[in-house]
């Protein structure tokens, strides 16, 4: 589904990603872990098409298309979804109106008819029940005055509504207490199936107790330095990132 080859990217003159290689197939859950500053969020931003990031080298193929050639809205149309680390507050824009516009613009991109008010409401009710999200939250302005947990639940609700092929969760657990993490993770698990994939970007192992990864990749200095199963996450939690740093240092020494 997603193939990243030798990706080098940065912001302005600063190089952050130094040759990422990653392959994600349908039905898989991947986790990218790494210490602060290792390039985790940069990778998520480059994949979603955030401005200001420059790709110097490498390629990203998503469902047979050159992802880097597409605008952020086209990437969403192709089935990519980024759950933001810091969802943006937009006073004056109703959450429902925003989601309706998003759903119908993506349908338009795919050459499908717009959903009428009735069909949209039906879809929304169904996903609200699935995600256990309150109507009151959706009638408010987008993320305005939402708690950290409400913002992240709203992200996952949007994911449920847009039904992406690949969802990237950027530090979705940051700032959440354990109950909120469980709710958000349950939401993601309900949406998971054999045709889609999830890329979890996280600093801590605890989210991976609830969203069980098939692969764990450790990012350090803009490169994936180690790949393993979920046990690797436990090892990191136990030993800290220092052991990775020393392993990498040893490799360099050798």
């Amino acid at each position, binding site marked *: 589904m997603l193939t990243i080859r030798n990706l080098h990217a940065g912001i302005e003159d600063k190089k952050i990603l130094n040759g990422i290689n990653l392959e994600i197939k349908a039905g898989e859950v991947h986790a990218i872990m790494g210490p602060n500053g290792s390039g985790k969020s940069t990778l998520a931003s480059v994949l979603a098409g955030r401005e200001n990031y420059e790709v110097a080298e490498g390629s990203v193929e998503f469902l047979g298309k050159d992802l880097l050639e597409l605008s952020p809205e086209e990437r969403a149309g192709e089935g990519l979804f980024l759950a933001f680390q810091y969802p943006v507050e937009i006073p004056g824009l109703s959450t429902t109106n925003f989601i309706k516009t*998003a759903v119908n613009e993506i349908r338009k991109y795919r050459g499908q008819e717009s959903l009428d008010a009735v069909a949209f409401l039906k879809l929304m009710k169904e996903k609200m029940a699935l995600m256990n999200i309150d109507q009151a939250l959706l009638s408010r302005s987008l993320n305005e005055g939402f708690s950290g947990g409400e913002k992240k639940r709203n992200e996952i609700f949007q994911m449920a509504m847009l039904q992406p092929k690949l969802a990237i969760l950027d530090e979705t657990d940051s700032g959440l207490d354990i109950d909120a993490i469980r709710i958000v993770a349950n939401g993601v698990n309900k949406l998971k199936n054999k045709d889609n994939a999830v890329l979890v970007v996280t600093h801590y192992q605890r989210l991976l107790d609830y969203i069980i990864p098939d692969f764990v990749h450790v990012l350090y200095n803009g490169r994936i330095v180690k790949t393993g199963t979920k046990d690797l996450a436990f090892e990191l939690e136990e030993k800290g990132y220092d052991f990775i740093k020393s392993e990498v240092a040893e490799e360099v020494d050798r």
Partner: protein
Amino acid sequence: MDNLQYIREHFDQLQATDAKSGLQAIRKKAFDSFNRLGIPVKHEEWKYTRISPLFNKEYKLSQEATSVSWKELEEVRLPGFEQATELVFVNGTFSFPLSTVRSNQILIMPLEEATKSEYREIVSKHLGHSSKYQKDGINALNTAFVKDGVFIFARKGQNVEQPIYIYNITDSRSGNVLSQPRSLVYVSENAQVQIVESYTTLGLDESFTNQVLEIIVDKDARLEYYKIQNDSAHTNQVSTTHIRQIAKSYTHTVTISLNGGIIRNNLNLVLDAEYCEGHLYGLYLQKGQTHVDNHTVVDNVKPNCFSNELYKGIIDGKATGVFNGKIFVQPQAQKTNAYQSNKNILLSDDASVNAKPQLEIFADDVKCSHGCTVGRLNEEGLFYLQSRGIPSNIARSLLLHAFATDVLEHIRPEPIREYVNRLISERLEFDGHD
């Protein structure tokens, strides 16, 4: 012919032909003021808005309602008119035949007639009160030619169900026109009234509208006033709305400026009794060369009044915005609560705004605040919407519309709110494409 010369001749002619008018004295006094004050040139209150060049053009100072047909009126009408009282001014002259009064809770009378009616004391007491605040020749010029204005009287205890729509039409199909509409509104004790005003120019020659509307709000009365400016680029206007709350009462005004050449709005709110409450909202959405200047004055004359003001601007192209918000708290006006906020988004490098909050507080036990921001469109918000599949032009339009929402939501008559929202959506989506 020199414009000022023309104005003088026209004035003499008016006074001679309309010699028995009850408005003779006020016109004479105003004309003297006009001669003394002249058109503002180097005037502090007109620092960012230069209107003297407009007087280099020749205008017809029409006192006659030219022929505007019913068909043309159809184009001017605002949504919801079927349930509204519609008052039509053509070139500054109130037209009874084109107007439709759909309520017996209000009384509509030519101003001239009102000076000779049982309402003559109200007229003589309140007509021209705005000159205490607009100390320039422009305001005096309107008053010097007051003749065919209208007197609107909301009867005591009446919750007027039908809003009053006032259409200011300028017919510039045969030459440049200076039109000077004038109205006096009295909202009696316990009455409630909604007024919506719009401005439309028919024709391609230049139009200059110099309007003065004076409103008096009596005890326990409620006034809602909406101004919608969406005229074409070759039209200019100075629009003065002077609201005076003479007893404990409530007012609510929303000023929406979408299109025009030079627009100058003077909005005065005089809180002339204890426990008055006033809300002032404004939105200016500008592009091209449009110049919009909102000058507001909130004058707290008596204690215990509350006012809240929010003006927002979105400025594109080479347009310029001006916000000048004055709050006066007079020495006896203790326990005043007065708030003011002005927020602007500049969309192009050539767009500009001059914002000037001005608080003059002469009492010591008051709560007053003001704030002003000028910024650009929220890039992170734009990316957030795009990442959900929303194309950038639509995302931009949604964000700008969202910015305007906390002004627009205060337009209470539903057909008008929907109308303005639609105008803004169409405009923002269209602009996003070019």
